[in-house]
C-alpha cells in the first residue's frame, strides 16, 4: 500500500507539472486542475524521502539491484493499477488514463519544475517485479537465446560431421571396394548384405564393416568425430584442441597370423595403451622404446614382445609409411592375443581367460586438430594403403623357430600366472558345482513316486559315493608310497 501511495504521489507530481501547459486534457479532473506548484506543500508531511531523480529519466537496470527506474511509458499502465488501489483506499476521484504522447516533449520540464520546489520529493523506484515491460524478463530472454544458440550449433555440427563422413567415404570408397567384396554391412539383415553406405551410430560416430578379403575375417572402420553437435563440447574444445580419429580394427583369421604382440605409436598413446590393454600389459613388459634405431622419427615409439618381431615388422615400406605420415598416426597395434581393454571386475579375477582374437588395430588422427574440412579426408587415403599393406604383411610374416618357442613360452607363462591367481576361486567354483549336482540328484530321488525306483536310485547314489571314497583312499596311499 505504501508503494502504491508513493507511486500515486509521483504521478500527481507529473500531473501538476503538466497541467500548466495542457490545461484542456484535465477538464474532468477538478482535483488535479487545482493543483499547481504551491500545492506541492501538501506533500511535505506525506513524503519523507527526498527527490533524487526526475521521473522521466531512463536508467538501465543494474545487476545488483532489483529496483529500476522506470520509463514513463511503462509507468502508465502500472499507475492505473495503483490508482485502483488508491481509489479504494482513499476514496479519490476516478483516474483518467493519460496519453503517452503528452509526455514526449516534457523530458526537461519536470526537471525545472521540481528544482523550483522548496521541499524535495522522493521518487521511489518501482521494483522490477511490479513493472510490466519486456525488459524485466531479461533473464528469460537470455535463457531462450541460449537454447536457440544450442539448437543452431546442434544442426550445424551435425551437418558438418555428416559432410566429413561422406567426404571420407567418397575418397576411400574405390580402394575399399577393390579390396573387399562386402562393404558396409549394418547387421540389420540376417545375411550379410553390402549396403555401400556408412552406418551412422551417433551424431559423431560412423561405422563401416568391410569383409570378403583373403586373409582377414573382416575390417571395422569407425570414424570418431568430435562432438560438434554439442555446444558444451565445442566450448571445452576451445580450451584444448583434440583431433577427429579414424579407428580401424582388422580381425584376422587364425591361420593367417603368427603369434606376436607389437605396437607402434606416439609415446603418450603407447603408455596409455600399455596400461589399458590386456595383451600389451601382459606381453610387452618394457617401456616404449624409441624407434630411431629403425629410422622412425622421434615422435614414434615401439612396444614389442620380442626384438625379432620388431625387426620383422619394420621393413622399408613400413618405415616409409610411418615416417611420412607420422603426424597422422596415433597408434598401430598388432596382436594375436587381443581381448580389448582390461576388465575391472568386482569379484576379483574372472574365472576364465578372456577370449582373444588376432587383430590389427590402427588409430589415425585426422589432420586439422578439430578444424577439419572435407578435403582433409584425402590425406588419409595413403594410410588406408598402409592398412592393406599391413594385412598382407601380417599374413606373410612368420616367426622363425626361436621366435616361435619364445612366443609359446610367453603365452604359457601368462596362462600359468592366470591359473595360479584364480586357483582358489576355481576350486570353490568346482566345489559348488559338485554340491549342486548332489542336491539335484537327491531331489530327483525324492520326487520319484515309484518306491521301487526310489530305492534303486538311492542305492546307486550310495554305491557311487563309496567308489569315490575308495578312489580317494587309493590316491592317498599312492602318494604315501611315493613319498616313502
Amino acid at each position, binding site marked *: 500500500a505504501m508503494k502504491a501511495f508513493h507511486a500515486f504521489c509521483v504521478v500527481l507530481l507529473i500531473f501538476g507539472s503538466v497541467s500548466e501547459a495542457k490545461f484542456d486534457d484535465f477538464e474532468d479532473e477538478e482535483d488535479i486542475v487545482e493543483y499547481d506548484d504551491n500545492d506541492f506543500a501538501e506533500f511535505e508531511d506525506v513524503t519523507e524521502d527526498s527527490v533524487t531523480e526526475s521521473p522521466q529519466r531512463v536508467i538501465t537496470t543494474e*545487476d545488483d539491484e*532489483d529496483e529500476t527506474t522506470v520509463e514513463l511509458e511503462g509507468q502508465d499502465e502500472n499507475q492505473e493499477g495503483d490508482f485502483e488501489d488508491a481509489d479504494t483506499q482513499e476514496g479519490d476521484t476516478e483516474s483518467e488514463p493519460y496519453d503517452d504522447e503528452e509526455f514526449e516533449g516534457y523530458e526537461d520540464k519536470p526537471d525545472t519544475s521540481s528544482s523550483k520546489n522548496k521541499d524535495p520529493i522522493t521518487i521511489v523506484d518501482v521494483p*522490477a*517485479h511490479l513493472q510490466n515491460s519486456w525488459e*524485466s*524478463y*531479461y*533473464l*528469460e530472454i537470455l*535463457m531462450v537465446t*541460449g*537454447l536457440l544458440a*544450442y*539448437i543452431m550449433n*546442434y544442426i550445424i555440427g551435425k551437418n558438418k560431421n555428416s559432410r566429413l563422413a561422406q567426404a571420407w567415404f567418397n575418397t576411400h570408397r574405390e580402394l575399399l571396394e577393390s579390396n573387399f567384396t*562386402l562393404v558396409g*554391412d*549394418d*547387421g540389420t539383415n540376417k545375411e*550379410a548384405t553390402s549396403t555401400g553406405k556408412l*552406418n*551412422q*551410430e*551417433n*551424431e559423431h560416430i560412423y*561405422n563401416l*564393416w568391410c*569383409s570378403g578379403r583373403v586373409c582377414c*575375417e*573382416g575390417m*571395422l572402420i569407425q570414424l570418431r568425430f568430435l*562432438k560438434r*553437435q*554439442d*555446444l*558444451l563440447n565445442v566450448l571445452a574444445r576451445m580450451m584444448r584442441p583434440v583431433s577427429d580419429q579414424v579407428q580401424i580394427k582388422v580381425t584376422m583369421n587364425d591361420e593367417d597370423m603368427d603369434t606376436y604382440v607389437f605396437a607402434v605409436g606416439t609415446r603418450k598413446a603407447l603408455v596409455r595403451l600399455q596400461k589399458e590393454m590386456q595383451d600389451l600389459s601382459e606381453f610387452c613388459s618394457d617401456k616404449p622404446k624409441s624407434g630411431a634405431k629403425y629410422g622412425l622419427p622421434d615422435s614414434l615409439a615401439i612396444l614389442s614382445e620380442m626384438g625379432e618381431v620388431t625387426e620383422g615388422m619394420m621393413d622399408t615400406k613400413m618405415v616409409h609409411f610411418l615416417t611420412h605420415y607420422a603426424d597422422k598416426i596415433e597408434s598401430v597395434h598388432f596382436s594375436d592375443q587381443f581381448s580389448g581393454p582390461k576388465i575391472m571386475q568386482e569379484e576379483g579375477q574372472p574365472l576364465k581367460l578372456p577370449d582373444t582374437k588376432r587383430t590389427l588395430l590402427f588409430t589415425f588422427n585426422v589432420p586439422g586438430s578439430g578444424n577439419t574440412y572435407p578435403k582433409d579426408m584425402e590425406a588419409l587415403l595413403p594410410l588406408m594403403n598402409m592398412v592393406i599393406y599391413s594385412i598382407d604383411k601380417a599374413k606373410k610374416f612368420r616367426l622363425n623357430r626361436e621366435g616361435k618357442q619364445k612366443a609359446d613360452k610367453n603365452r604359457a607363462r601368462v596362462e600359468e600366472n592366470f591359473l595360479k591367481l584364480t586357483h582358489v576361486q576355481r576350486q570353490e567354483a568346482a566345489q559348488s558345482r559338485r554340491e549342486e549336482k548332489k542336491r539335484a540328484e537327491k531331489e530327483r530321488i525324492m520326487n520319484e513316486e515309484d518306491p521301487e525306483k526310489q530305492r534303486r536310485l538311492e542305492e546307486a547314489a550310495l554305491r557311487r559315493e563309496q567308489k569315490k571314497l575308495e578312489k580317494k583312499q587309493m590316491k592317498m596311499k599312492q602318494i604315501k608310497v611315493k613319498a616313502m
Partner: protein
Amino acid sequence: YKPPPSECNPALDDPTPDYMNLLGMIFSMCGLMLKLKWCAWVAVYCSFISFANSRSSEDTKQMMSSFMLSISAVVMSYLQNPQPMTPPW
C-alpha cells in the same frame, strides 16, 4: 557377416547422456517442488544436452519424457508465479 556389436561399451565409453538425463530430471523435480525458475531452465538445458549426446541405440521415449518433464517444470513455475526470474545470486 554381421558386424560385431559392442554390448557394454557404449555405457562405459561415454556416460554423458545418462548423467544429463538424470540431472535434468532432478532439476525439473526441484524446480516443480521448490518453485525455483532457474532449476526448471537448467533442467531444459540438461535435457537438450542429453539429447545431443545420445547414442542412436538409445530409447527416444526416455529422452522425450525427460524433455517433457523439464518443459512442464518451466511452464508450471511461470503459471504459479508470473514474475520474471530473479538471478539466484
